[in-house]
């Protein structure tokens, strides 16, 4: 559960990007957020996982104020997919991209390796496992970035335009993936321009950002 209590945010003084937002995001619900370019959608997502912070208002993750928590600590509970996949790709190969955090932390178990194999298949990256991520196509990079997020068992994930440059087939796959994640009890905030999600489902809420204010549709 992520709570925003009267949150305002500005990158530069006097220029509020978000204005007095109070909203509670629950697990088991898919939130779809739309809004014009520059309306503050990405900023809201970053605020919810501590990538940007504010003293105007409070952001709570599972009841805890995240102001003093590090991004790493927050990321135990909240995942975040960047709008730009390149920022979150590091390793020289697709396979290493998925395993390196576990390698570095000394926790590369058989269980993790199995998970990697499953994700490689799910995201159709099986035959790319030796490729250099930064030279793959944009859609492939986006799928890989998504796979890295799914490696961790976070309860709430923020997806910043996950299907922006992906072809129809993969788009459907990613939508189904997110929907399954929510049906299994996870919470998701999907920032999306296109009306791709079937917004009539029982556990779906449609949100709109306008002039720094968040509206429920």
């Amino acid at each position: 559960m992520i709570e925003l209590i009267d949150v305002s945010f500005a990158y530069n003084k006097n220029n509020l990007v978000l204005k007095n937002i109070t909203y509670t995001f629950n697990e088991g619900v898919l939130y779809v957020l739309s809004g014009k370019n520059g309306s503050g959608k990405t900023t809201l997502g970053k605020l919810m996982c501590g990538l940007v912070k504010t003293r105007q208002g409070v952001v709570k993750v599972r009841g805890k104020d995240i102001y003093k928590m590090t991004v790493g600590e927050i990321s135990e509970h909240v995942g975040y997919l960047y709008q730009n996949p390149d920022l979150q790709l590091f390793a020289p190969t697709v396979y290493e991209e998925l395993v390196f955090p576990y390698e570095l932390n000394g926790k590369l178990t058989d269980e993790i390796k199995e998970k990697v194999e499953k994700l490689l298949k799910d995201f159709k990256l099986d035959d790319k496992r030796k490729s250099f991520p930064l030279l793959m196509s944009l859609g492939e990079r986006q799928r890989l970035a998504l796979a890295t997020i799914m490696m961790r068992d976070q309860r709430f994930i923020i997806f910043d335009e996950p299907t922006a440059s992906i072809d129809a087939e993969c788009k459907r796959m990613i939508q189904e993936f997110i929907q399954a994640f929510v049906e299994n009890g996870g919470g998701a905030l999907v920032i999306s321009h296109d009306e791709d999600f079937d917004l009539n489902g029982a556990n779906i809420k449609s949100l709109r950002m306008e002039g720094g204010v968040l509206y429920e549709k």
Partner: protein
Amino acid sequence: MKSRLDPRTTMLFIVLTSTLSVLAANMYWLLLIFLLTLVLNVLFGLNPFKTLYRMRRFLSMIIIIAFFQSIASSGGKPIIRLLGANIVTSKGLEDSLSFVLRMGIVMLAVLLGTRHDSRDMIDGLTKLKIPYELAFMTGIALKFIPLFGQEFADRIKAVSLRGININKLKLPKKIKLYSYILVPAISGSIIKSRDIASSMETRGFRAYHERTSLKELKLKLVDYAAMTVALAVFILIIYFMFARR
């Protein structure tokens, strides 16, 4: 606020301080030049400490490199001895400190250039008879420096999002992680600059030979004064650096 000096004056500052950092033969001279560059930063209205703080991860990486350098070099008095071998020697320590200072000087010097509009900087360089293409590239590069810093910070955050606590890693793993952060950042900018270059070509970048620009750059009295002082200090430092040999 932008700098009131002519971009050419700033360029002179950058060239002189970087030259000194290369020529300086020992740590003490480097320290002096480092302090001078710090003062220049303050005079230019930059906050060098804020910058150094923002670049702290990058700096700590340089310090790690320096640490290994100091282990690798021998000579001088031993400072730390282990199992009969000199691990850290006075010379090694001095070498590595010099390396850190040198990198610091160049970083701070280049920052001075960011106080100018990149267009002015390009104009200034072409006035020095530097080919427009080269000047344009330098202008772009200067514009990208703050962005590069931002990107570096973003990548560090992206790594924490994966559940890696940089501060808790042991040194060899830390180095591996830094390579994960640096290599894509560098290869990413190479890919990006290749794209910029080809997109410039498709837009007919080299089509005109003579360029006119709206704003005329003119050296003012303050520029001549600043240049004179800079050159005087430069010559003085060089003189004392080598006169005592």
